[in-house]
Every structure is written in structure tokens, then in C-alpha cells.
């Protein structure tokens, strides 16, 4: 019984991480209609920057604030100087561009930090374990889950309860109209892309101490994040929440129950969802 509970908590932690990665991805997709292949590479950059910040300063909280800011700037620059240039050629070229960027970032990371795993060790409160219903459980995994909840709630609040959120959603539906109202839509899109990139950087910092930091981490999470988006429904934040939870738990219990099949279970879920509802659980019909 205790074991099942532990695996359930493990699943929650991974679901939290998955949500942090896929929230930015699904937001960029939903608003700009760009499938950002570089998203996971940005997540990896976040993890590596955080590793360096930790080595230099030793402050995890500092890297948790600093790295997303750096990634925000990188995201803004990428959108402004690269994405916008190929926008006229259509979405295919935007997609190819992010794809090439992912390639380059992965190679640069291998070059700068080496092609081997780096361990990130925590100190202080986050490195401890606490007692939950008689089980000693690492604080850090619970911390990940709470980060995800916090990010999810604030995103929902901003999108649906503020003027900024209204502007954002309106820009997606009718950019020309919003433009006519005197709002700088290209700037809004740059902001969306930069924010999504910062979010992936945040997820990378979080992932560092949980998984190790290595050049393959981008591709590993990218596929899972894509499955989250497919299962949850393209561009749906609520869908991302539910799908992250489903896949996080499925991964966790898959390892426990069917160790040989655990990798395939996620795709099996995806196939079932696709057969039953091709647009995803919360997706709108195309």
C-alpha cells in the first residue's frame, strides 16, 4: 500500500515537470500556431545554465529566478530576429527554423558542457525528506508539484481574468482588429514566445536536481511533452493539466507494474485517445 502511494507521488512530481514544459509549448502553439521544436532545447539550456549558476554561486533560488530571465531574453531575440523573418514563408518554415535551432542548441551544449551527464545537488530544506502519512518522502518532488500548480493557476488567472489575458486571446482570434485598437500585436507575440521560452527554462532548472543534466534530456522530454499536447488537445491549458497527470502517473506505475512495457504505455494511451477522439481530450474539433 505504501509503495503504491510512493509511486503515486512520483507520478505527481513527473506530471508537474511535464506540465511546466508542455504549458509553454501549448501556449506558443495555441497563440502563434507554431510547433516549437526548440522548446525542449530551451528547457535543456535552462538546466545547463542552472548547473553553471549553482557551481558559481551555490544558490538554487537565484538560478530559479535568473535562468528564466536569461531564457526570456533569448526567446525574445529568437522571435524578433529569426522567427519573424521566416513568418512570411508560412508555418512550415517557422517549424523548420525552430527545428534547426534545436539542433544547434544541442550541439552547442555538447560543446560547452561536454557530452556526459552532470549531477546537480541540492542543499538545505529542498534536499530533505518529510513525513507524509508515515512515509519519508523527498521535499523536492513535492516542491516540483507545487511549482506546477502555482504556474498553472497563475497562467489561468492571467489568461482568463486580466485585461492582458483578454488582449492575448483577442490577438489570436483577430489580430488585425486588435491592431486597429492600437495594440502592438507583433510585440504581444514576441512576449508570448519569450514567456513560453522562459517557462521552459524554469522547467529546466526544476528538472536539473530531479533528473540529471545531459544532452539527451531535451529529446526525451520533447516526445513526452508532445504526447501531452496530443492527448490533452492542441493549445488547451486544461488539457495539458489532465494529460500531464495521466502521463506522469502512467509512467510512474508503468515502471512498477510493466517494466518492459513502460515506454510503450504512453504511446498506447496516445493511440487510444487518437482512435476515440482525434482532437484530444479537451481539443476543439479542427
Amino acid at each position, binding site marked *: 500500500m505504501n509503495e503504491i502511494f510512493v509511486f503515486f507521488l512520483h507520478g505527481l512530481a513527473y506530471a508537474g515537470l511535464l506540465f511546466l514544459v508542455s504549458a509553454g509549448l501549448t501556449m506558443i*502553439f495555441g497563440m502563434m*500556431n*507554431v*510547433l516549437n521544436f526548440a522548446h525542449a532545447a530551451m528547457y535543456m539550456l535552462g538546466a545547463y545554465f542552472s548547473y553553471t549558476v549553482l557551481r558559481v554561486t551555490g544558490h538554487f533560488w537565484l538560478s530559479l529566478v535568473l535562468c528564466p530571465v536569461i531564457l526570456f531574453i533569448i526567446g525574445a531575440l529568437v522571435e524578433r530576429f*529569426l522567427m519573424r*523573418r*521566416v513568418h512570411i*514563408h*508560412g*508555418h*512550415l*518554415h517557422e*517549424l*523548420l*527554423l525552430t*527545428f*534547426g*535551432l534545436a*539542433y*544547434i542548441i544541442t*550541439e*552547442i551544449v555538447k*560543446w560547452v558542457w561536454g557530452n556526459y551527464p552532470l549531477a546537480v545537488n541540492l542543499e538545505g530544506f529542498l534536499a530533505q525528506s518529510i513525513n507524509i502519512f508515515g512515509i519519508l518522502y523527498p521535499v523536492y518532488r513535492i516542491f516540483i508539484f507545487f511549482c506546477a500548480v502555482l504556474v498553472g493557476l497563475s497562467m489561468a488567472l492571467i489568461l482568463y481574468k486580466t485585461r492582458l489575458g483578454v488582449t492575448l486571446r483577442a490577438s489570436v482570434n483577430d489580430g488585425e482588429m486588435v491592431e486597429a485598437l492600437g495594440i502592438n500585436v507583433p510585440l504581444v507575440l514576441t512576449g508570448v514566445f519569450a514567456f513560453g521560452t522562459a517557462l521552459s527554462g524554469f522547467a529546466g532548472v526544476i528538472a536539473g536536481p530531479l533528473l540529471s543534466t545531459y544532452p539527451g534530456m531535451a*529529446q526525451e522530454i*520533447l*516526445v513526452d511533452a*508532445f*504526447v501531452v*499536447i*496530443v492527448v490533452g488537445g*492542441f493549445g488547451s491549458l486544461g488539457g495539458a493539466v489532465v494529460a500531464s497527470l495521466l502521463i506522469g502517473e502512467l509512467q510512474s506505475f508503468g515502471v512498477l507494474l510493466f517494466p*518492459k*512495457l513502460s*515506454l*510503450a504505455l504512453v*504511446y498506447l494511451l*496516445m*493511440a487510444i485517445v*487518437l*482512435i476515440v477522439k*482525434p482532437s484530444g481530450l479537451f481539443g476543439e474539433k*479542427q
Partner: protein
Amino acid sequence: MISRKKGTYPYIAVLFLLGLLAPLVLREYHVYMLTEIIIFALYAVSYNLLLGYAGLLSFGHAMFFGTGAFTVAVSLIHIPALPVWGAILIAILATTLVGFVTGGFLLRHKGAYFALLTLAFNALFYAVATKWSSVTGGDDGLSVTRPDIHLGFTTINTAGIVNFYYVTLVVIGAAIVFCWYLTRTAMGQTVLLMRENEERMKFLGYDTNISRLILFTFTGAVAGLAGAFYTLQFQFVSISAISVEMTTAALLMAFVGGTGTFWGPILGAFVYIILQSYLSDLTDRWPLFMGLIFVFMVLVIPGGLSQIIQRIQGLFSGKGSSESSSGPETEEVSP
């Protein structure tokens, strides 16, 4: 941008003749490389039928390439005295089946959705190939010996690379020409027009879903054939044949050569293999340079190398740059 002139056959004949003569002047190492180029040219061509003609960006083409590659290896290992043709045929049948089944799922979506799903399916195939090590050899891969080819009246000893090169040239060359021929047929034109205006094609009574599924299955089988020859050439197959990198390779070749033309991806395969070979001799960082070249091309030359060639042709024929490619006899095929 594919011209409808009848004059393509002489060019094909010249290319084929050059291919026949190549081993006489090239060193064995280069013949080996040329074999690889021809195999990847077919792979890139099949990819471009999806990307350039149907406008479907797939990140899962390696699942066909890899399935073909593994099927040949597995059937040569487990079926005694199986002729090469038999193994290749089994590979084509297997990839046709894979294409038909996955196509059924994947083609329900379009654009970015489709791209994302193909990537996930490729990951599924990769996962299966990694885990099912009793069949695929897992991380170690499979080694096979290239069997001799019996033609009835004679036997070709394929142990030497030059003999195998000629087999590749004839078989793969014929497959490429067949793909080209297909793009001229009603089927090929349907796919092309479907990309431009699907609603109208539906209205005209075409079942666009069936056409798309046929094309998808066909490109899968063709990629499977390329994969089969890939195994035969290297006499070895590993899970890298089914990896995302293998899909990426097709994408890069097609894009570098130019997705707007039929022959562009062949040029792309040529450039890609040679560039990869020389860059990897020069530096360990060659993937970085490949990535930089790719991004540069996306930003500056979205039409690939064929765009440059057409510009130059345009300059010489004195018609100006971009107008030269859009006469009444030509059709735009850039996605």
C-alpha cells in the same frame, strides 16, 4: 517548378551512364560513398513526395526506413537460403503494411498536428526497437552478410562493393525513376492539386483521404526499400536507422536540395553525404555546422539549392530571376 518538358529522359539516361562509368574512375572508397548517396537519394525522394508534393511535414519517416532496414536483416538471419530479392520483398511488404496502418491514424491530422504525431509514432517505433532486443539486437544492432544475387542465368557476387554498387544503381535508380514517373501520372497530379485546394478536389469527386493514404503508404514502402539497401550496404543495422536523426537526415536532404522540385532532394542527398563526410573529417562539431547551414538556408534560401540553380538558369536565359520558373508549362511545387 517542375517543368513539363519531355526532355527529362535524356538527362536520366546521361545520369545513368555517368553512374555506370563512375566506378572506372573513382576509388573504392568513393564508390562506397556513391552507393550510400544513391540509397539516400531514394530515401530523400520518398520523403519529398510527402513534403514537397503533398505538403505533409513528417518527422516519422525513419520508422519506414528503419522497418525496412530491420526486416531485411531479420529475414536474412532467420530464414535460411532466402534470396536477396525475397528479403527485399518482405521488407517492402512490411513497410507497406506499416505505412497503411500508421497512415490511418496520422492522416486524420494536418500541418503541425501531423508533424507532431509522426514524431510521436517514430518515438514509439524507436522504443519498440530498443526494447525488443531479442529480434532487433537492441543497442548492439544486427550484423548480416550480403548474400550473392542469383539471376537465373548468372550469379552476382556482391561481396565486392563495385558489384553491389551496380545492383544499387540499377534497382534504386529504377525506383527513383518510377517515383518521378508517378508524379507525372493522374495520381501524382491529384496529390499536387489536393495540396493547393483540397475543397475543390473533393468537389470534383476525388476522395482526397484515400489519395493521401495511398501516397503515404507508397512513400513508406519506398523509404523501406531504401532502408533495405542501407542494411545490405553496411551489412549491419542498428537502432539509429529508426531514430529521429534518420528522419532529420531526410528532411535536411530534401530541404537543402529544394523541396520545390523532384530532383532537388537527390542533389540534397549528394551534398549532405559529401558534406557530412568531409566535415566529420575536419571537425567533431560537424552536426553544429550542419545545423547552422540548415538555419541559414531556412532564413535566406527557402527554396534550397534548386532555387539557386533556377536563378542562375534564369540569368543565362535572360528572363530575370524568379519569373523564369513560372511559365504556363510549369507548376509550383514549393510547400
